[in-house]
């Protein structure tokens, strides 16, 4: 049952990603020079939106069937449980995007090097999206209009990741160094790995009071 739901989640997120990325050439036109220029931004924005799409279900299923209350009173630290939730969210909605991105990048005529940088930047960047997004998901738990609200709360916080993620790909396409981008993304990942589960656990407690 759980596995089937997971499978559906993976497919929905993945197809959303593919559709959004494929819409841009239709809107912008098939000019390859333009597409190559906008590719990093388009792929990254689509990844942000796709990863956000499933945030609503991160805690809400457990919330509705009462498992979340049991988790809150269980002896194991909430920090770790929340971290586990974040990891599983990334496995369902982050990792598939990372694997799919190089294929979609080919549609945009990206070079081999740019494709590998794109994949690597998504690999480092998408876990941060799950980590920060979980805070928003925990805060809006059981709130009316929660889905839209999550996007309002979380998208502004995603901006630095978007800038450095897409920036790395652009820098490599322009033949510039992208080490600084990756070290900053890595730093963001480490910082959010420390603080986000803690903040999300606190938010869960607030929402469950």
């Amino acid at each position, binding site marked *: 049952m759980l596995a089937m739901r997971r499978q559906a989640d993976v497919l929905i997120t993945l197809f959303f990603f593919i559709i959004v990325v494929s819409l841009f050439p239709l809107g912008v036109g098939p000019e390859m020079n333009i597409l190559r220029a906008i590719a990093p931004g388009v792929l990254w924005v689509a990844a942000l939106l796709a990863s956000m799409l499933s945030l609503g279900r991160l805690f809400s299923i457990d919330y509705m069937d009462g498992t979340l209350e049991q988790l809150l009173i269980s002896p194991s630290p909430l920090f770790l449980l929340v971290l586990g939730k974040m990891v599983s969210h990334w496995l369902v909605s982050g990792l598939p995007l990372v694997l799919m991105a190089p294929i979609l990048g080919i549609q945009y005529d990206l070079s081999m090097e740019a494709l590998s940088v794109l994949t690597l930047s998504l690999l480092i960047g998408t876990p941060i999206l799950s980590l920060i997004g979980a*805070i928003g998901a925990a*805060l809006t738990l059981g709130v009316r*209009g929660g889905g839209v609200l999550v996007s309002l709360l979380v998208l502004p916080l995603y901006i630095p990741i978007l800038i450095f993620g897409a920036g790395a790909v652009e820098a490599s396409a322009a033949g510039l160094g992208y080490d600084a981008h990756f070290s900053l993304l890595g730093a963001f990942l480490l910082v959010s790995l420390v603080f986000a589960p803690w903040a999300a656990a*606190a938010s869960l407690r*607030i929402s469950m*009071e």
Partner: protein
Amino acid sequence: MSINWYKYAAPSSFYFLAGKLIPFFTVLAVILLVAGLYIGFFVAPTDFQQGEAYRIIFIHVPAAWMSMFLYVVMAFWAGIGLAFNTRLSSMFATAIAPTGALFTFIALWTGAWWGKPMWGTWWVWDARLTSELILLFLYIGFMSLQAAIDDPRRADKAGAVIALVGVVNIPIIYFSVQWWNTLHQGASVSVMQSPKMATAMLVGMLVMVLAAWMYSIALILLRARNIILERESHTSWVAELKETTR
């Protein structure tokens, strides 16, 4: 003079204190506003580079400063409310948000109307403007989260978490936007750093900053009183209020 702070930390006593303070800050704000506008329009000379268009500075800079300052103050009170479970500080944070958002909007609006004659375009993806826009998003997120939650205590705490996450993120966002801007070699806007600002311009600007500050205090106190009344409407002290009490 010793003030019993704990006494004023109770919403009921604060309600009356705020009522006494509002006229004081209102009068201050009006005096400073009139003085600032007089200096801005009749004392400050014409700028040799920008002509008269620079006079937008007298609202643009105060609005931009207040928008950032108020977010920090809001996060501070929200954090205090979260850490020490003090109702009044959380109410204060809720009262600050709309004024902060309004100043953010004013800063963006006046920035556009200043940019059009100076740079020939309403909007530039400059680090400062972009950060200000993101600040507006953060304010809107805070307010919509609080508005969506019915239970006031939960709204306070949830708002506090998002305000604190926002305040940690603001410097990161600012520096990443700045980096993004230099990377793309966007329009480098150096109008603000004019070589020397006439003293009258600077004085006018600072007086307007003070006016905006006093205005914010008066309005936040007014809104805090509203919130107190809303939340404490069932308590005995509200019931004992005379109908004529302002």
